[in-house]
C-alpha cells in the first residue's frame, strides 16, 4: 500500500503541477484574448471551433477559464491521468508477476481493490479541485473576479467524467494482464471522442459534449449540477466499480 500510495501520490502531484502550468498562462492571457477574439474567430478552421469562440465571447471570463481549464486542460491531461492511474491497478501487478504476493496476504480482496480504486480516484480528482481553487486568485491579477461556487461545481462535473473514464480503465485492469494494451485502447477511444467533437454533424455523439463550455455555462446559470448529467456519470462509475469487485473476486494470480 505504501509503495502504491507513494507512486500514486507522486503521479497526483505531477498531474496538479502540469495542470497548473497550463492554467496560469491561459488565465493571464484572457485580457489579450478578449481584445482579439474577432481575429481568433476568423482563424478558426472549423464551424465547431467558431461556435466555441462565440460561446467564449458571450460567456466572458467564466466561459474562457472553464474552457481553458476544464474543457482543454482536464479533458486532455485529466483523461491521460485517469487512464495511466487506472490501468496498472491490477493488470500491472499481473504483468510484473506480483499479483500472487499482493493477494496472498491476509487482507480481503474487496479491501485491497477498494484501496487501490480510492487512491487512484483521489489522485485524478484532487488535482482538478486544487488547481480550480487557484483560479480566482489568478484572475485577480488581471482585474477579473469570479466566485468559487460555480468553479467548484464545474470541477465536480469534470471530475465525474474523469472518474467514469478512470473506472472504465480500472475495470479493464481487473480483467487483463497487459496494462499497456488497455492504455492504448482507452487513449485511442478518447482521441476519437475529441475528433468526433470537432465534426459538426456528429459532435453531439462525443463524450466531451458532457464537459464543454456550454455545459459549464449551464452549471453557472443553475448554481449547481444537473441530475440529467451527474446521475448517469456517477452511475457508470459505481457500476464499473462493482463490476471490478466482481471480476477481481474471481481473479487468479
Amino acid at each position, binding site marked *: 500500500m505504501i509503495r502504491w500510495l507513494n507512486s500514486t501520490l507522486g503521479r497526483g502531484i505531477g498531474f496538479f503541477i502540469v495542470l497548473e502550468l497550463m492554467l496560469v498562462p491561459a488565465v493571464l492571457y484572457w485580457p489579450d484574448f478578449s481584445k482579439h477574439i474577432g481575429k481568433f474567430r476568423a482563424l478558426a478552421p472549423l464551424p465547431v471551433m467558431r461556435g466555441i469562440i462565440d460561446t467564449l465571447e458571450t460567456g466572458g471570463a467564466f466561459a474562457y477559464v472553464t474552457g481553458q481549464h476544464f474543457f482543454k486542460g482536464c479533458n486532455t491531461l485529466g483523461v491521460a491521468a485517469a487512464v495511466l492511474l487506472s490501468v496498472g491497478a491490477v493488470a500491472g501487478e499481473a504483468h510484473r508477476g506480483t499479483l500472487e*504476493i499482493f493477494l496472498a*496476504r491476509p487482507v480481503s480482496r474487496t479491501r485491497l481493490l477498494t484501496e487501490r480504486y480510492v487512491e487512484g480516484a483521489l489522485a485524478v480528482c484532487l488535482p482538478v479541485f486544487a488547481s480550480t481553487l487557484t483560479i480566482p486568485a489568478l484572475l485577480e491579477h488581471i482585474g477579473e473576479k469570479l466566485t468559487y461556487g460555480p468553479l467548484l461545481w464545474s470541477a465536480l462535473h469534470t471530475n465525474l467524467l474523469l472518474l467514469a473514464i478512470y473506472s472504465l480503465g480500472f475495470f479493464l485492469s481487473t480483467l487483463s494482464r497487459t496494462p499497456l494494451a488497455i492504455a492504448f485502447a482507452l487513449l485511442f477511444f478518447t482521441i476519437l471522442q475529441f475528433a468526433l467533437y470537432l465534426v459538426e454533424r456528429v459532435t453531439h455523439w462525443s463524450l466531451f459534449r458532457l464537459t464543454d463550455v456550454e455545459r459549464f455555462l449551464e452549471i453557472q446559470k443553475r448554481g449547481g449540477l444537473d441530475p440529467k448529467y451527474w446521475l448517469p456519470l456517477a452511475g457508470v462509475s459505481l457500476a464499473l466499480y462493482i463490476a471490478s469487485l466482481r471480476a477481481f473476486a474471481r481473479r487468479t494470480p
Partner: protein
Amino acid sequence: MVEAAAGKIVARGLTRRFGSKLALAPTDLDVGPGGVTGLLGPNGSGKTTLMRMLIGLTKPDAGEASVDGAALEGDGLAIRRRCAYAPGEIALYGELSGAQQLEFLLRGRERDAHARAEDYARRFELPLERRVHAYSHGMKRQLLFAAALAPQVRVRILDEPSEGLDPTKRGVLIELLREDAARGTTILLSSHHLGEVDRVCQRFVFIHGGKVIANESAESTAARARRLLRVAYAPHAGLAQALARAAGELAPHVRSARVRDTELLVELADDDPRGVLERLTRFDGVGAPTALEFGRASLQELYRDLYGVEAC
C-alpha cells in the same frame, strides 16, 4: 462439510480446470495436525494449483477444504489469517528494500511478525537495507521464506521454498523448517527436489497430471523404495513382448510390475526377493539378466520406476 480441525489441512474433491485443461482432478487431502508433508511432483503436475486453492487464491470448480479449522469460503480470507503462505512465483517489488518488502508481505499479520521475519532473514545473511532488484533469485526466495515463517500460525503452506537455493542456504532452510515443525506447526511443502525433501518430511503426497497418485508416510515410502527390484536384459527381437508377458505373470505375486525399455521393474510385497528371483529364471524369451539391483532405490527412482514420472 469437511472436517475442520485445528492445525489440519483437509480437502475433499477439490477440482480445477483452466479452459480445457484439467489442472487438478478431484483431490482429497489430509495433512496434520503437525509434521511436514511433502507435496511432490514434476512441474505442471498441479502442486501450485492445489496450494493456491487451499488459501483461496484460485477458486476451485468443485470440492471443499478447510485449513486450521477455517472453511474455504469467499476469497479465503479466514484461511489466510490462519496460515502463512510462501508463493512459488518470486516476482517482488524491486524498488523496495528487503525490509520494506517484508513489511509489504506481512501486512495483516501480528505486530512482532516483522521483527521475527528480520531475524530469519539475518540467518540467511540477507542485506535487508538493499533494494530487492539487487537480490539474486535465491535471495528473493529466502526473503519470501523468512516472511512465511514469521507469522505465529499453526499451518504453513510453502510452494517450492528451496528452489534456487545453494546447498548451504538449503541447509539453513531445512534447519528452520525442523525448528518450526518441532513447535507443532503443520507444514505442507511442495518441491521437486526429492533429495532434500525426504530429509525433512514425515509424509509424502505425490501428484502427477493433476492427480494424487501416492499418499503415504516417509517410512512406508522408504520401505517401498527398498523393495524395488530392477532387472535389466540384453536387447533382442521379441524382448518387449517377452517382458510384458513376464510382468503379467509376476503381477499377482508382487505389489506391482512394469516394463521400461529393456528393464523389468518390480515392487515386491515384502523384503524377501528370493521367490521373485526364482520365478525370473523360468520366463521364456527374455534371456539371462545382464544386471540386477535391489534395495538401493532412492525416493526419486521409486517414483520414476513405479509411475514413469520424473520427479526431479
